[in-house]
C-alpha cells in the first residue's frame, strides 16, 4: 500500500520527470517495444468488432431469409422429387405438412453439381447450379451486370453466372450455356451475388438457373450431389423470435431436414470470427510479451545506471517505497506512451487490413472506431508493461544508502531469497496467464495456460542459450585467436552485455516466423504431394454403362491411362441382423445407429481385388461369388468405420435395397481404408458375380498431370456426353492451397509484428550499449587501434549475436513445427533447412547493419571529440 501511496505524491512525478532527462530518447525507443503488439491487438480487435457489427446488422442478408430448411433428400413439392405421394415416407409427409403450416413467403431451391459447357469457345467446367425461385433473396439484393439480367432470370429467360466463370471463358450476355441437356442464354453476371449456399462454393462457382427449368437438364440425380432447400420469410417475426417450436424441430430432424435461422448463421459466423480473432490475437500477444521483455530490460539498464542516485536519495531521507515509486512512475509512463502510440497505429492498421486480406467478402464492412477495443488494447499493453517493469524495480528497494558513502552502488541481494521477488514474479505470470486465457479461443483455460507454458519454455531455452554462449565465449576463446575476434566475443559476456535480451527478442521472433512458414509449407505440401503424387487427378462421374467405351477411347486418345474404372451401384440399408431399421431402437439392439446411415444412398462397387489403400482387418476377402452356391446371400466387404457405426462384424447379415431389388448380405470381412488418400473408396465392396446387373453408372479416374490436358479432356467428354461430370482434383487442391496460402499470409502478417518488436528492441538494445562502445572505443583509440580494427570488433560482436539468436530461433522453430505437425495438424513432418538458413542469414545481416548504423562515428573521430560530444 505504501508503494501505491507514493505514486500519488506530486514529488514522485516531478522527480520521475527530472530524473529521466538525457535518457528520454532511449527510454522512448524502448517504450515503443509494446507499440506493435498493442497495434496488432487493437487492429484485430477493432476489425472483429466491425465484422461483428456488420454480421449483426446484415444478418438477414447473410441468409437471405428468416429460415432455411435443407436436406439431401427432396421434401417439398417444389423439389419435384418424381416420387408419388404413396412413396413418400411418413416422415416426409410430416415435413410437407409442417411446411405448409408455416406462415409467410417461401422460395424453393434445388442445387446440384454438374458441368457447364459453352459451345462458343467449347469451354467447360464444374459448377454448382442453383435452380431457385427468383423471389430469393428475401433480404439483400442480387446485383447483376447488366442490371436487367435479374429480370430476365425472373422471367425464365436466361442463366446468371458468377463473374469468375464469365472471366474464365470470356462469356458475354447472350452467349449460350449448356447445362446437362438444357441450353439457355447467359442473361448476365453477378456483381453482388445472393448469399452462398455452402462452404463448397469456393470450389465451384455458382450458376443461377430458373427453378422450373432445372429438370430439363436431366442432370439432377444422386451422382450430382443434389441439395434441396426451402427459404422462408415471415415479416411478422420479431427480431429474435423463433420460427420453429421444439416439436417441429424434432419432426425435421427425424426426416433428415436441417434448419438454419438468422441467429444460427450469426452464431456460426461469429464462432469462426472468434476463433480467428483469438488465434491472431495470441500472435499479437506474443509480440506484446516480447515488448514487455524489452521494456523490462530498458528499465533494468536504466536503474542500474541510477543506483548512485538512488543511494543518494536514500541518504537524504527518501524511503525505499518512494524511490521505487519514482522508477515505477517512469515505467508506467513508458508503458502508457507505447500503448497509446500502438493503439493509434492499430486504428490506422484497421483501415488497411481489409484492403489487403478481406477484399472478397460478400458485404461491405463499415470500419468504425471501436473504443472498447482501443481502450482494451491500451489497457493490456499497460498491464504488460507494468508487470514486466516490476521485476527490475525490486532492485531499487534494496539499494543501501551506505552505497553513497562507498561511492559504488550495486544490486546487493539475491533475488531468489527475496519473498517479494517471488510474489512479483507470481503476480506477473498470473496476470499474463489470465490475459492469455482471455485471448484464447473460447477462453479455454487449458489453451491459455498451455500457450503460456510453451512460450515460457521457449523463452527459458533462449535464456539458457544466452548463458551457454557467455560461458563458451569465456572458455573457448584462446589467446592465439586474433585480437579483434577475441574482443568481439568478449563483448558477449562483458558486464551490461546485451546477449540475453538479444537472444530473447530476436530468437523468439525468428522462432515464431519460421515456425509459421514451416507449418504452412507442410500443410500445402501434404495436400499436393501426399494426395496426388502418382495418383489420379481427374475424376469422371456418372459415366453411363453405354458410354464407358467411348469415354475410355477419349482418355486413351490423349495418351492417358485409366487409373480406376469403378461401377457404381446405389443402395440403401433396410435391415441389420434381421431387424428393420425402424425397429432397431425398440429391440434395444445396442445403442442407436447414426441417423445418417438410415437415410444415406450408399454408392457401392464390385471388384475382384483389393486396392492399395485397403487392408483386411478381420475375415477373408472374396474375389468372386456364385450366388447359386450361397443361396442368394452375397458376401460383402465392409469398411471398419461403418461396421463400428452399424455394430456389425464378420458373419453378421444385412439387407440392402437397390431400386426395387432386395440384397441379402453377409459380412465376409472388415476392411480398413485410408480415407485421406484421394481415390475411389467405398463403404461396401461386393465380389464379382454379385450385383453387376444393378450397375447405375461408372466412375473413372485418370492422371492428366496438367491443367491444359484436363481442360482438353473436359471439352472432349462434356461436348459429347453432357451428363458426365469431370472433377479436377488438382485444381481443387490448388484452391485449398490458395486458401491456406492466404491464411498463411494473414498469420505471417501478424507474426511480422513480433519481428518488428524484436527490431525495435534491437535498436534500443544497441542504443543502450552505445556508451559502453564509446568508452571502449576511446580507450582502444587512445592505445592506438585503427578505425578498421574497431569496426571489425563491432562486426564480430553483432554478427555473433545475430548468429546465435538466429540459430537458437531456427532450431526451436524446427521443434515447434514438429510438435504442431505431429500433435495438432496430424501431418508428416518435413524438415526444411532453407527457411531456417534464410532467417539466420537475414538476422545476421540486419543485426550487423543496425549495429554499425547505431555505432556510426565512434570509430572515426578522435577520443577527445567523442568524449566532448557525449558529455554535452
Amino acid at each position, binding site marked *: 500500500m505504501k508503494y501505491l501511496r507514493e505514486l500519488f505524491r506530486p514529488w514522485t512525478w516531478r522527480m520521475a520527470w527530472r530524473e529521466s532527462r538525457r535518457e528520454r530518447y532511449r527510454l522512448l525507443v524502448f517504450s515503443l517495444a509494446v507499440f506493435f503488439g498493442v497495434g496488432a491487438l487493437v487492429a484485430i480487435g477493432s476489425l472483429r468488432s466491425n465484422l461483428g457489427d456488420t454480421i449483426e446488422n446484415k444478418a438477414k442478408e447473410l441468409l437471405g431469409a428468416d429460415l432455411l430448411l435443407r436436406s439431401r433428400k427432396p421434401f417439398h413439392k417444389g423439389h419435384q422429387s418424381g416420387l408419388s405421394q404413396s412413396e413418400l415416407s411418413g416422415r416426409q409427409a410430416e415435413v410437407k405438412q409442417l411446411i405448409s403450416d408455416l406462415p409467410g413467403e417461401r422460395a424453393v431451391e434445388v442445387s446440384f453439381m454438374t458441368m457447364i459447357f459453352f459451345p462458343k469457345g467449347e469451354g467447360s467446367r464444374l459448377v454448382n447450379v442453383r435452380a431457385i425461385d427468383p423471389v430469393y433473396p428475401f433480404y439483400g439484393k442480387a446485383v447483376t451486370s447488366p442490371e436487367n439480367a435479374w429480370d430476365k432470370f425472373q422471367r425464365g429467360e436466361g442463366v446468371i453466372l458468377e463473374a469468375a466463370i464469365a472471366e474464365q471463358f470470356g462469356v458475354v450476355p447472350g452467349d449460350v450455356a449448356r447445362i446437362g441437356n438444357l441450353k439457355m442464354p447467359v442473361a448476365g453476371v453477378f456483381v453482388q451475388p445472393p448469399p452462398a449456399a455452402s462452404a463448397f462454393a469456393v470450389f465451384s462457382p455458382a450458376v443461377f438457373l430458373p427453378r422450373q427449368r432445372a429438370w430439363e437438364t436431366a442432370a439432377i440425380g444422386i451422382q450430382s450431389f443434389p441439395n434441396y432447400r426451402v427459404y422462408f420469410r415471415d415479416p411478422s417475426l420479431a427480431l429474435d423470435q423463433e420460427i420453429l417450436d421444439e416439436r417441429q424441430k424434432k419432426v425435421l430432424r427425424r426426416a433428415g431436414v436441417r434448419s438454419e435461422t438468422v441467429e444460427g448463421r450469426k452464431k456460426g459466423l461469429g464462432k469462426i470470427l472468434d476463433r480467428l480473432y483469438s488465434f491472431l490475437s495470441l500472435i499479437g500477444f506474443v509480440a506484446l510479451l516480447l515488448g514487455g521483455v524489452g521494456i523490462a530490460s530498458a528499465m533494468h539498464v536504466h536503474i542500474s545506471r541510477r543506483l548512485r542516485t538512488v543511494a543518494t536519495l536514500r541518504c*537524504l*531521507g*527518501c524511503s525505499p517505497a518512494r524511490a521505487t515509486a519514482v522508477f515505477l512512475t517512469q515505467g508506467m509512463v513508458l508503458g502508457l506512451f507505447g500503448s497509446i502510440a500502438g493503439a493509434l497505429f492499430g486504428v490506422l492498421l484497421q483501415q488497411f487490413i481489409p484492403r489487403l486480406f478481406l477484399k472478397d467478402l460478400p458485404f461491405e464492412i463499415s470500419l468504425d472506431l471501436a473504443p472498447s477495443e482501443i481502450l482494451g488494447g491500451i489497457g493490456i499493453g499497460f498491464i504488460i508493461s507494468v508487470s514486466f517493469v516490476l521485476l527490475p524495480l525490486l532492485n531499487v528497494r534494496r539499494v543501501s544508502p551506505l552505497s553513497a*558513502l562507498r*561511492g559504488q552502488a550495486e544490486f546487493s541481494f539475491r533475488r531468489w531469497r527475496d519473498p517479494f521477488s517471488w510474489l512479483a514474479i507470481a503476480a506477473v505470470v498470473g496476470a499474463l496467464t489470465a490475459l492469455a486465457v482471455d485471448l484464447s479461443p473460447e477462453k479455454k483455460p487449458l489453451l491459455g495456460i498451455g500457450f503460456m507454458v510453451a512460450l515460457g519454455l521457449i523463452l527459458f531455452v533462449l535464456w539458457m542459450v544466452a548463458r551457454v554462449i557467455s560461458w563458451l565465449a569465456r572458455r573457448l576463446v584462446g589467446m592465439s585467436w586474433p585480437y579483434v575476434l577475441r574482443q568481439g566475443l568478449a563483448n558477449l559476456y562483458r558486464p551490461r552485455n546485451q546477449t540475453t535480451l538479444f537472444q530473447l527478442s530476436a530468437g523468439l521472433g525468428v522462432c515464431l516466423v519460421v515456425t509459421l512458414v514451416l507449418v504452412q509449407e507442410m500443410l500445402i505440401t501434404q495436400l499436393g504431394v501426399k494426395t496426388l503424387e502418382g495418383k489420379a487427378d481427374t475424376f469422371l462421374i456418372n459415366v453411363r454403362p453405354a458410354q464407358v467405351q467411348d469415354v475410355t477411347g477419349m482418355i486413351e486418345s490423349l495418351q492417358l491411362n485409366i487409373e480406376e474404372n469403378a461401377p457404381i451401384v446405389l443402395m440403401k440399408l433396410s435391415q441389420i441382423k434381421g431387424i428393420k431399421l425402424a425397429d432397431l431402437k425398440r429391440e434395444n439392439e445396442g445403442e442407436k445407429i447414426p441417423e445418417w446411415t438410415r437415410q444415406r444412398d450408399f454408392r457401392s462397387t464390385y471388384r475382384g481385388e483389393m486396392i492399395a489403400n485397403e487392408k483386411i482387418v478381420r475375415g477373408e476377402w472374396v474375389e468372386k461369388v456364385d450366388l447359386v452356391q450361397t443361396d442368394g446371400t452375397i458376401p460383402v466387404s465392409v469398411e471398419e468405420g461403418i461396421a463400428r457405426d452399424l455394430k456389425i462384424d464378420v458373419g453378421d447379415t444385412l439387407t440392402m435395397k437397390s431400386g426395387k431389388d432386395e440384397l441379402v448380405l453377409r459380412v465376409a470381412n472388415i476392411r480398413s481404408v485410408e480415407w485421406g488418400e484421394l481415390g475411389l473408396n467405398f463403404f461396401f465392396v461386393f465380389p464379382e458375380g454379385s450385383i453387376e446387373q444393378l450397375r447405375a453408372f461408372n466412375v473413372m479416374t485418370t492422371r492428366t498431370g496438367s491443367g491444359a490436358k484436363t481442360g482438353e479432356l473436359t471439352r472432349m467428354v462434356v461436348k459429347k456426353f453432357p451428363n458426365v461430370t469431370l472433377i479436377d482434383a488438382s485444381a481443387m487442391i490448388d484452391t485449398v492451397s490458395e486458401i491456406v496460402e492466404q491464411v498463411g499470409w494473414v498469420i505471417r502478417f501478424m507474426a511480422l509484428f513480433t519481428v518488428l518488436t524484436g527490431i525495435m528492441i534491437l535498436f534500443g538494445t544497441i542504443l543502450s550499449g552505445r556508451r559502453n562502445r564509446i568508452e571502449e572505443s576511446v580507450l582502444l583509440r587512445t592505445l592506438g587501434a585503427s578505425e578498421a580494427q574497431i569496426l571489425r570488433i563491432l562486426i564480430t560482436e553483432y554478427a555473433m549475436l545475430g548468429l546465435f539468436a538466429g540459430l537458437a530461433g531456427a532450431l526451436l522453430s524446427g521443434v515447434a513445427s514438429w510438435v504442431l505437425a505431429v500433435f495438432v495438424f496430424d501431418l508428416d513432418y518435413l524438415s526444411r533447412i532453407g527457411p531456417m538458413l534464410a532467417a539466420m542469414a537475414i538476422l545476421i545481416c540486419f543485426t550487423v547493419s543496425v549495429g554499425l548504423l547505431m555505432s556510426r562515428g565512434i570509430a572515426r573521430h578522435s577520443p577527445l571529440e567523442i568524449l566532448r560530444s557525449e558529455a554535452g
Partner: protein
Amino acid sequence: MLEHILITEKLSKSFPSGGSELAILHGIDLKVEQGSTCAIVGPSGSGKTTLLGLCAGLDSPTSGEVILADRKLGGLSEDERAQVRNESVGFVFQNFQLIPTLTALENVLVPLELRGEKTRNAADLARELLVDVGLGERVTHFPSQLSGGEQQRVALARAFIGEPAILFADEPTGNLDGESSAMVEEMLFELNNVKKTTLVIVTHDRELANKAGMVLVMKDGRISETTRA
C-alpha cells in the same frame, strides 16, 4: 537543546567473509555534543566510513546502539530511519553525489521536497543558499557543467537547506584542489558557526581535522585516541 546530539554505546559491526565474520568496529563508545565539531581520522581500513554510516543511520550495527537526536536508531524501521535522516541529518560526500539529471537548484531542493515543503518557499531558500555558497549564477546548471569545487558547494547547500541538527561529511575535500578545499572547509565551519549544526567530518587531512573541536583517531576498528581542542 540536547547536550549530546550523537551517542554510540558499544557499537560493533562485522561482515560475513568467507564463512566467518570480519569485525570492522569493536565496541565504540562515543558522545558528540550538540553544536560541536568532530573529526574522525585514521588510516584506510580503520573503520571511519563504517562508523560514519552507522552514526548516520545508513546501516545497522551488529551490536550496540546509536542514539541520534535523542532517538535510538536500532528500533527503527528503514522508513523511520529515512525520516530521521531527512529531518535531522545533512550529508557531504567525497564524490559530491549530486544527482546528475537535476540542476544545481533542484539538487539543493531535494531534502525539502522529500519533507513535503511547499516548492515555492523551498526554491527561494535554495536560491539563497546557492548565493551564499557563491553559485547564485549557476542555479540552472547541471553537475556536469560545474567544476569539482562548485559541485561540492552545491552539495553543501543541499546539506544545510534542511537545517539539520548534525552534518556528516565524508572526506569533503578529498577530490578537490587546494583552493577549492580551502573554500569548502571555510564554508563548512562558517555554516556550523552560524547555524549551530553539529559537524562530524571523516578525513585524512590532519589540517582539517585540527580545526575541529574534537578529534577521534581510529585504528583497527577502535578509537585509539581522543583529542579535544
